[in-house]
């Protein structure tokens, strides 16, 4: 196992500048960015389009080189091919070889990871079960839906038994049910102790799965921290009651009014999310996310 003191990912003062063809000016995609991801945590990298998320990931994965600064994966320089032995990557909107079946795709990527024939057989079966594609094992990827492609993409990212998985917009273009499956897979990876870096525009999803979040804007990391710390409003307290009578609510209101400086800001029924409502109506789940009818 990796030394727990060694960060899964360490990016120090990373800057990436792209020249503009036939012009003097340059585009600064990432500007002096530093971040650290601990082993076993799920790190959410969020930011608007063009903020530098994908560029940061590409440098981390050795697809492009840094103009300045450095990045490392479990202590190894990310420019070193060997560092990719412990990484799995799912790019945004990936197209795999559509003439290969699901099983053949995993076997191909397994060979690239240096797996032996028996290991490939076992890993393929295990991963197809994990991403719920056992029934589509012998179907060509050309016939897969968007959600299935994302899940086979996730499976190929995991085929080499990586310690770090990098997911770039894993739910882009996927319906809520598919999106939920991917979210559950990320939580499963976390349960198994695999470090995950997740870039997504779906902030609700990031909030559901991430331990740590970094916000990138204009190539700079403008906020970073534990999710609970970042989103909690320190001077407010939430109280959710079940089967409270109007009398009880009145008494609580009176108690709050009698406390100097305290103020009741809102009282009403909590709302479910549109995603949960959609899943309840289309898959029979109850509103708290558990299987219903």
């Amino acid at each position, binding site marked *: *196992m990796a030394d727990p003191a060694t960060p899964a990912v360490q990016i120090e003062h990373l800057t990436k500048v792209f020249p503009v063809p036939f012009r003097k000016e340059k585009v600064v995609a990432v500007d002096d960015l530093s971040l650290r991801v601990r082993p076993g945590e799920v790190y959410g990298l969020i930011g608007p389009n063009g903020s530098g998320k994908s560029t940061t990931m590409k440098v981390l994965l050795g697809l492009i080189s840094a103009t300045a600064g450095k990045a490392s994966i479990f202590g190894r320089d990310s420019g070193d091919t060997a560092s990719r032995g412990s990484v799995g990557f799912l790019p945004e909107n990936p197209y795999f070889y559509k003439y290969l079946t699901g099983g053949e795709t995993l076997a191909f990527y397994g060979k690239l990871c240096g797996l032996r024939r028996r290991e490939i057989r076992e890993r393929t079966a295990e991963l197809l079960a994990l991403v719920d594609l056992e029934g589509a094992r012998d179907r060509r990827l050309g016939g897969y839906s968007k959600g299935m492609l994302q899940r086979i993409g996730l499976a190929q990212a995991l085929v080499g*038994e990586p310690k770090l998985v990098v997911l770039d917009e894993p739910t882009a273009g996927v319906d809520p049910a598919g999106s939920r499956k991917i979210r559950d897979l990320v939580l499963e990876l976390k349960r198994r102790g695999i470090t995950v870096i997740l870039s997504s525009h779906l902030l609700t999803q990031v909030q559901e799965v991430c331990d740590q979040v970094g916000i990138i804007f204009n190539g700079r990391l403008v906020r970073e921290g534990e999710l609970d710390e970042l989103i909690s409003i320190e001077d407010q307290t939430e109280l959710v009651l079940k089967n409270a009578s109007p009398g009880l609510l009145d008494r609580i209101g009176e108690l709050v009014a009698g406390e100097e400086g305290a103020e009741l800001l809102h009282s009403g029924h909590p709302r479910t999310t549109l995603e949960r409502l959609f899943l309840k109506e289309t898959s029979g789940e109850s509103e708290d996310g558990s299987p219903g009818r």
Partner: protein
Amino acid sequence: MTAGGTQAAAERGHKLFSPGRVWAIARNTFTQLVRMKVFYFMLIFSALIIAVNFFFLGWTLEQELKSMKDAAFGAMRIFSAVFAIVGTALLIPKDIEDRTLYTILTKPVPRFEYLLGKLLGVLLLIAVSLAMMAALFFVVLYARQHQIFADELAVLPGEPSGPEREALREAIFSQGVQPRLFLAVVALFLQAAVAAAVALVVSTFASSTLFTIIVSLMVFLIGHAQSLAREVWFPEGVVHSPVARVLAGLVAIAFPDFNLFNVFDGIAVGQEVPDGLMLRLGVLTAFYLTIYMIVSWFVFAKKEL
């Protein structure tokens, strides 16, 4: 995907060069190209040109067998060269466009292995296609030479003597299936291998498939005229300056002399294949493949994806 599993992954270690990874990419490239519709179109077109020769009738036996070989080798030459260039030109830009390349290069796969695997996949396909077309052609040619021999015997007045029969057989069969035709097929393969390597170099810095195809075809055509240009600019018997010699060497590297591989042209006019020619062609091909792989790697290693 247990802790033990990741431990096993760590223990696998990383090999600087892995023939297994290269072979996986080569096999996948072979499958990728086989599944392209254009491949089937060209293969069927070439096979038809070869097979249709079986029905050429009414010429003299010499004309007929010669025209069969001309047409068949012409088809194989066009197929192998065009597919080497177009097939190779399609591979890398498509992998970049589809982002499939990201999923490959973010595995522990050095860029050199990716390029080598792609080139080997193209060469494997060209070898298999040429072998299939040559096998078909040799079967057709073999059947035709026997049919012509039987027809000629039938029209001879009376029963030919043993020596007459043997002379006729020798005259017909010398234009039929001969070992030197196999060498001509091997030379076509070597020529296509160099053309594929040219396309690989161009595709590493080109921004589109079309550009790669056009530039590679131009190099291929200029390469055919290289020996002519060399004779004009550097005539034999004249002492050239070192600068001119270096320049000529660079031109020879940039534009391989593809005419050297046209072994069939000599065979078609009844020449024997000179001793050692195939070995020289093999060494020349290895030289070009090595140079072009190094240049491709040099460009591709720095490429921002």
